[in-house]
Structures are given as structure tokens and as C-alpha cells.
């Protein structure tokens, strides 16, 4: 079994193992295994090895390269990397190279992590299967005939396949938690504003959050600790202190009040619901007070989400017009060039959401759709607020099903959208949520259990997640 990120960093910091060796092992694993998975769209071997050598030199010189020293990480390809193509898996960006690094990339590198590559995703993070990619789909490492989930499917698969111990993704309505559940890894969507969005190519700005994938809860906590905290380049970034993360993982749940959300258990597939209930029982056995709670407003979350997110996306994606960067399809005038470029550059799902969002914001429809969806969003947040008056954390399924087959839902967008039904509520409310692997379905496919906490309640979130990890059935570990 590959070492965890924390084990690896400890070995590198004490010169027990070189960063170069750790990074080379990751690159070799990708070379050997990614042909079948297609988690990566770009591997940065030379750059990563050069960076690893710098870290080894720092260790040799007696300085500390940081808590993630020498840890190979993968980045979802909607995170800007200076001088390295950032495509969002879209033809419209082509080989565009940002002239700057995302804040999270700067922070990971400052912590000593080494970026080994960029991962596949649904185009502009729109999708739940990583099939909407101009590079072709990623496969689930646990079953190559199945999807890894999405939109951060490449990052989830890269960790699940053991290519890297850590990866970053982005979560707008579940794009970290859902693929984490499908691939059997830990995935975190932090409190909105805990992690800077500067350098994340926006899908829906009021919902987008960057978060880590890891094989263990402790690794996920370490990765989040490295990237969290105020950033003056993001006006929505919170200035509150970062919650205690690493120390919370082993704290346990004795005396904690955990609510099992009826709406996130009752409607899901039987094996998934069964694992969620077992997880709840395990928490009770670990000393928590566990009760069922109903938050009826959550039922309307998906409908509100599929108005708000496309509305923001329709505006965020307007800038891909062929004028300044990326694809340009020539035409007689600027307006025709714009139409031709967008027609050729965007995939079907992106076009669908731009149209949905444009419609939702149009004069005469704004109040019926966008404004109403905002009110529903407020109701969802209030519903969570009431539940958190009683409970420290909430628990439910991450996904309604386990990983589905490739091509199973590509012709049915609505079925695809339903994959997000359990994850969207926390996104709308801006609260932190984590998916932790907890057993499998009868076919052996991983099941994820979702924990949610109040805004900036990451300490509680990681305490519960750590307890779940310790209580999980052992066969989940590959």
C-alpha cells in the first residue's frame, strides 16, 4: 500500500526518503497505470522532478520545506497554473496558459507539495461523470466500466488509483464529494470562503469551492490546512481564523450530537442507505448521540441549484468569446466570430447550461426563476440552521447510487443532474461537507457517507469524519 501524504512528508522532511524518489514513483505509476484510467490530461514530469530536487536541496541545507514536503499532488484542470495549459477540458480554451498561479497552487507549493499533473474533468466543471470532457472520459479505478463521478473525476481517480496521495478539485454542487464517493476516497468541500477561489476558473461563483481529495481523513485535513485562509485577492474569502483541522481528526465523537438527515437517506438506493445507517450506528457506538432529523426544504435544493448555477455560469462563461485567448473561429465580423467560436468551442452540456441560465436571468423570467431560486436557497440555509441548533453535525448519503456505467446517463441530462441531489444542499447553504468511504454495495463498489457541519465547523466535520474512517468496514481499503 502506498504511503499516505503525511507519512511521505515526514520521510522527506527527515531525509529518510528523497522528494525526487517520491515524485518519480508517482510519475512512474501514472505512466504505468493511467492509460487505462485517463485521470490526467497533462503530466508535468520534468517540472515536478526539478521541483522535487529543490526540496531535497532544502532538506539537505537544513531548512524545512513545509508540512507537505515532497508530496506529489494532482490539480483539477480548472485551477490556473502559470505557464502550464489550463483547459477546463474545453476546446474553447485550447492550450491557453495562464500567466499566474491560483492561490491554492501557490499555497500547496509553499507547503512543499509538488504538482505532478493536471486532471481530467467535466467541461467547465459541468457534469457528474467526467464524460463531458474534450479529452474523453476518465474511468473509475475500482471498475473501469464505470464512471469516476464528476466533475472532479480525474482528481478522484488519480487518488483512488494510487497515482498521487493528494489532489485538488472544485465542488459547486457536489463535484468533489460525489466522485470521492464513487471512487472510494475522502473528498472535502470546505465552508464557502474558507479557501480562496482566485485562479479557479469560475463555473458558479457563489457556489464554487476548492477542496482536497485524499486516501485518508488526516491527509485531507493536512491538505485543507495548507490551502485554507484569507486571501485578499478573493473578496468572498473569509477573514476568520482557519478552524483547527489536523488535531480534530482523532478527537472522536463522544458526546457529539449527530443528526441523520431523513431526506439524504430515505430516497437513495438501498445499499447506499444501508451503509449510511450503519455509519450512524457506528457513531452512536463511538459515543455520539444520534437521532434522525428531517429538513424538508432540502427537497427543493436541486431545482434551485439548476437555476442558480447555470445563471451564474451563463455570465461567467461569456468571456470565452474568441477575442483575447483560446479558440477563435474566424468570421466576417466580431459578432459572427463570437457565435462561431462558441458554437465550436463549447460542448453540449455547457451550451445547455448557458441557455438555461440565460433564460433564467431574462427580463420577464428573472422573478419567476432566478429570484425565486434565491429564496429557496435562503430556505435551505434556514433549514440547516434550525437543524444545527440541535445537532453538531449532520450525516447522510453522499450520492443516491454507487458509480454508474460509462454512457449510462449521457443521453439523459436529468438523470445525470439527479446524481447531485444529496450534495447540492450543503453547496447552497455554503456549509462544509465531507464524503468518507464507508463500505461497499453488493457489487463491491464504494459507498460514501457525507458529513455536514455549520459554516466554519470544519473541526467538528473532521472529528466525525475521522471517527467514521476508524469505524468503516476494513474491505474498503484497496
Amino acid at each position, binding site marked *: 500500500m502506498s504511503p499516505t501524504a503525511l507519512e511521505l512528508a515526514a520521510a522527506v522532511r527527515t531525509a529518510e526518503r528523497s522528494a525526487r524518489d517520491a515524485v518519480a514513483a508517482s510519475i512512474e505509476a501514472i505512466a504505468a497505470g493511467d492509460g487505462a484510467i485517463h485521470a490526467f490530461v497533462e503530466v508535468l514530469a520534468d517540472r515536478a522532478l526539478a521541483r522535487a530536487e529543490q526540496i531535497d536541496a532544502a532538506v539537505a541545507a537544513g531548512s524545512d520545506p513545509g508540512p507537505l514536503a515532497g508530496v506529489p499532488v494532482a490539480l483539477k484542470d480548472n485551477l*490556473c497554473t502559470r505557464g502550464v495549459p489550463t483547459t477546463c477540458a474545453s476546446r474553447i480554451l485550447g492550450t491557453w496558459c495562464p500567466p499566474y498561479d491560483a492561490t491554492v497552487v501557490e499555497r500547496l507549493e509553499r507547503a512543499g507539495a509538488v504538482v505532478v499533473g493536471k486532471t481530467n474533468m467535466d467541461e467547465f466543471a459541468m457534469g457528474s461523470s467526467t464524460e463531458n470532457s474534450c479529452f474523453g472520459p476518465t474511468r473509475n479505478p475500482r471498475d473501469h466500466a464505470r464512471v469516476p463521478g464528476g466533475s472532479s473525476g480525474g482528481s478522484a481517480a488519480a487518488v483512488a488509483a494510487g497515482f498521487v496521495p493528494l489532489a485538488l478539485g472544485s465542488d459547486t454542487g457536489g463535484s468533489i464529494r460525489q466522485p470521492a464517493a464513487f471512487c472510494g476516497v475522502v473528498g472535502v468541500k470546505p465552508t464557502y470562503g474558507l479557501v480562496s477561489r482566485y485562479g479557479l476558473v469560475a463555473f458558479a461563483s457563489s457556489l464554487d469551492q476548492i477542496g482536497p481529495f485524499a486516501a485518508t481523513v488526516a491527509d485531507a485535513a493536512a491538505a485543507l490546512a495548507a490551502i485554507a485562509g484569507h486571501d485578499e485577492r478573493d473578496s468572498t474569502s473569509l477573514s476568520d481564523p482557519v478552524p483547527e483541522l489536523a488535531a480534530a481528526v482523532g478527537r472522536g465523537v463522544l458526546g457529539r450530537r449527530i443528526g441523520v438527515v431523513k431526506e439524504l437517506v430515505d430516497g437513495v438506493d438501498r445499499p447506499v442507505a444501508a451503509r449510511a445507517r450503519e455509519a450512524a450506528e457506528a457513531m452512536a457506538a463511538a459515543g455520539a448521540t444520534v437521532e434522525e432529523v428531517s429538513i424538508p426544504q432540502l427537497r427543493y435544493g436541486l431545482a434551485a441549484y439548476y437555476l442558480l448555477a447555470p445563471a451564474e455560469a451563463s455570465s461567467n462563461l461569456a468571456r470565452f468569446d474568441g*477575442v483575447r485567448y483560446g479558440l477563435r473561429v474566424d468570421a466576417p465580423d*466580431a459578432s459572427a466570430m463570437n457565435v462561431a467560436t462558441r458554437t465550436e468551442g463549447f460542448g453540449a452540456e455547457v451550451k445547455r447550461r448557458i441557455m438555461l441560465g440565460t433564460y433564467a436571468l431574462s427580463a420577464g423570467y428573472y422573478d419567476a426563476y432566478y429570484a425565486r431560486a434565491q429564496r429557496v436557497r435562503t430556505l435551505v440555509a434556514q433549514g440547516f440552521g434550525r437543524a444545527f441548533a440541535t445537532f453538531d453535525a449532520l450525516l447522510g448519503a453522499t450520492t443516491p447510487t454507487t458509480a454508474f456505467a460509462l454512457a449510462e446517463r449521457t443521453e439523459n441530462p436529468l438523470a445525470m443532474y439527479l446524481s447531485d441531489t444529496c450534495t447540492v444542499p450543503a453547496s447552497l447553504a455554503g456549509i462544509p461537507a465531507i464524503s468518507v468511504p464507508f463500505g461497499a454495495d453488493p457489487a463491491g463498489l464504494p459507498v460514501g457517507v457525507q458529513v455536514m457541519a455549520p459554516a466554519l465547523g470544519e473541526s467538528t466535520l473532521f472529528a466525525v469524519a475521522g471517527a467514521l474512517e476508524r469505524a468503516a468496514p476494513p474491505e474498503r481499503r484497496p
Partner: protein
Amino acid sequence: MTGLPDGWEVVVGLEVHCELATATKLFCGCANAFGAEPNTNVCPVCLGLPGSLPVLNRRAVELAMRIGVALGARIAPSVFHRKNYFYPDMPKDFQISQYDAPINRGGRLELPDGTVVGIERAHLEEDTGKTTHVGGTGRIGGADRALVDYNRAGVPLVEIVSAPDIRSAAQARAYVAELRAILVATGASDGRMEEGSLRVDANVSVRRPGGPLGTRCEIKNLNSMRSLGRAIEFEAARQIAQCAAGGQVVQETRHWDEDRGETVPMRSKEEAEDYRYFPEPDLVPLEPDQRWQAEVAASIGPLPAERRVRLLHLLGAAPTPAQAEQVRSVVASDLDALVVAACEHGAPASLALARTANEVAAEPSSAARLDPAAFATLLVLEASGELATSQSKQVLAELLATGGDPAEIARRLGFEPMDRGELAGVIEQVIAEHPEDWARFAGGEDKVRGPLIGAVRKATGNKADPAAVGRYLDERRARGS
């Protein structure tokens, strides 16, 4: 054209876009500077590169609040919205602006003649880049290609929207002049229309006095006071002609063609874009607290109207029309403090006002460096006759260019004031040399006064002050000797 046909009234509301005089842009750290090489004052944020995010410039908010305070507006919690439309010079293909929750709500502006124009709102927004069409005909439809300069993209603007309270082209010009003076006085803007720091759109309609408002047209591209006045007059006449012929005014946006002196339709409201405004999710609501508002209010000095009163008070007597105009222009160019300071140093007010309004205002870049005490010393030399007007103006030019002591500059230029006795000697000599001229002058023929003065000046190598020579001649004639 000077007036409207009897029985018609023009109704005008103005939208003035004012570029704020901040060091940096509204949402990034790029320089807010006019005239740089194209696309040099740009960064990922103002180019709208994927992944970039806006961060609001605190100084821009302060300047917007100053405008609000000066216009008597209510400063309110505000929200930025996105105004969505595709245009190549707009990097994000949306403009961050304020929509239904502007920072300044309501207000009023009093014109020098006492007319009050209501202010509906004054909100913050970002400017766009600038497109230049090149090749072909050079016009939008016939150019080979378009070049876009994004230096202006993201420059902070405040859009000041007046109520439809303006009733003539002259009043519209007076409104913009007074608003410009206020913007300069508050430090919000440099007020340079020629550099696009102030841009005006006019909503124009016509009606029978007292009747309901007519359908309005919005006139764009009013880049100077002259364009503004001409465009309103043309548009009012066009609409009246249309109505008088039994037709109806169509609501539309029209473009002022300065060369042809007419407005031409741009697009009608039926084809108008749906801007799909929604709250900008990358920014948080703006809620200036009472303390900040109070600090901003306290940072504003006296406004133009008050400053004009002060100058008029210094003049003492009722101003001539020329002086009234000088008072307006000196305050509008923010030079009234110089006049006041010069007067405090003993300069005569009317002379200080005239020199400031003309010679000093013509050198705006040097004006700020002019030492009021030196300026006053010079004006006293001129008033006492020790320097001729033309000499005084030359010394002033030197003073503006390099500074220094006016008496010293005058000496260096060879303007040594002549000793009265010496001057008298020269004048007597000239009289002796031109007996016929003197006889005619003594006999009351004033037209020979000039040639006599000229002869004295010539004899002194232009050192003699013509006013002093004239006074001597007048006195001698009065004495009858």
C-alpha cells in the same frame, strides 16, 4: 438656432459618466492613467482572464461618496450587479455596475442662476476598453479589423443621473459646467472632457409646456460642451418637426455626428439588449458605516457655489459680466484659492482674478506651483505702475515656468522701473521734439495720446510704463503748462 418654436418645451435629463481620479483601477492594482501605450496598464483581473476575481478599490468608493455628499445624496448600502452583453472591448463580456441599489440615491444640483436640477442617483461602475477600427473605410461597418486597447477597462466611473429637470441646451451646458466644477472641487475627477474623463449622454424629449412628458431619445457621443448644446438643439428641433407634421417620436438611441451636426439613430429600444442584471457574486455588498461616511464628508472642502461667493465678496463692487465669468471659470479650474491667497498678500482682487482666469489658467500644469506671495508682489508692482501690463505678463510667464522673485525676474528681463524724475525728463524731451503733437493733445485731441506714449516708450527702450506715461501727460495737460 437659439430658441424653440412658440408653444414647445424641451425636456432634458443628463447621464454624466465621470472617471474617478484614483491612482488605480476599480477592481485591480493597474494604473488608472490616460495616454499610456495600448495594453500596458493591464493584468489578469482587468483583462478578465479565467480565474481572476475583482477586489473593490476603497479610494474609488470614497470618491463616489464625496460626489454623493456634494450633491446632497443619501449614501446607502449598495450592491454591485453584472450587466451582461457581448462586446469585444469588455473583457468579461459583462460590466460590473450598480443597478437597483446604487451607492448614492437622490440629491440636487443648484445652477449659478439658482435653478435646481434633481439628481436621481450616482452609482459606481467600471469603464470598458476602447476599440479602434482600422483599414477599409475605418468606420465600424467597413473596417478591415478592430484593435482593442484595454488600458481603460476597469477604470472607475461614477454615473450621475439627473432628473428630467433641464429645459434648454444652455441649461444643460450650465448643469454640466457646474457638475464638472463640483467633481473637480471634491477631487473626484480631473474633469477633462477632452480626455474622456467626463462623458455625457442626453435624454431629450419635447412637449407642450405643462403637458405630459413626450417620448424621449437618448443621445450618445457628446464629447464637449459644444456638442452637448448643439445636439440638444438639433434633437429638439427634429422632434418638434416630427410632432408638428403629425408624426410620433420613436424611442431610440441616437448618435451625435459632430461633423454633420445631426443625430442619427443607433438602435431602437425594440432591438435593445436584455442585460440580464444579477448581483455580482464575486463581490460582497458595500455598506459604508457612519464613521467612514462622516470622515468622507469632513474631507470635502467648500463647494463651488460657496467659493464663488467668496471671490465675489473679495471683488467688493458688483461684478461686471466678464468678472462673473472669470469667477466661474477660476472656481471651475480649482484656481480660486490662488486668487484668495494673492489678495491676502495685498494683490488687488480684480487684477488677481483676471490674471488667474486668463494667464495662469492657460498653464494648468504650472499653476499649482505658483507661489501666491510672489504672484501678489508682481500684481502690486503692476498696479503701482512700476511694471507695464505687457511687462507684468512676461514676468508672470517666467514666474509660472521657473518661479522666483518677480522684481528679480523683471530686472533680468530689463524691465527696471524707471525713476519718476528720469521718466519726467524723457517725457519733457519728447514733448519738446514733437511740439505739433503736444499742441494737438493739449487742445483736446486724444488720438495723439497714443503716439506720444509710443514715442516716450521708444526713447526709453520700452522701459517706460505706458500707463505711467499716460498719467504724466494727462496731468501736464490738466495743469495747462
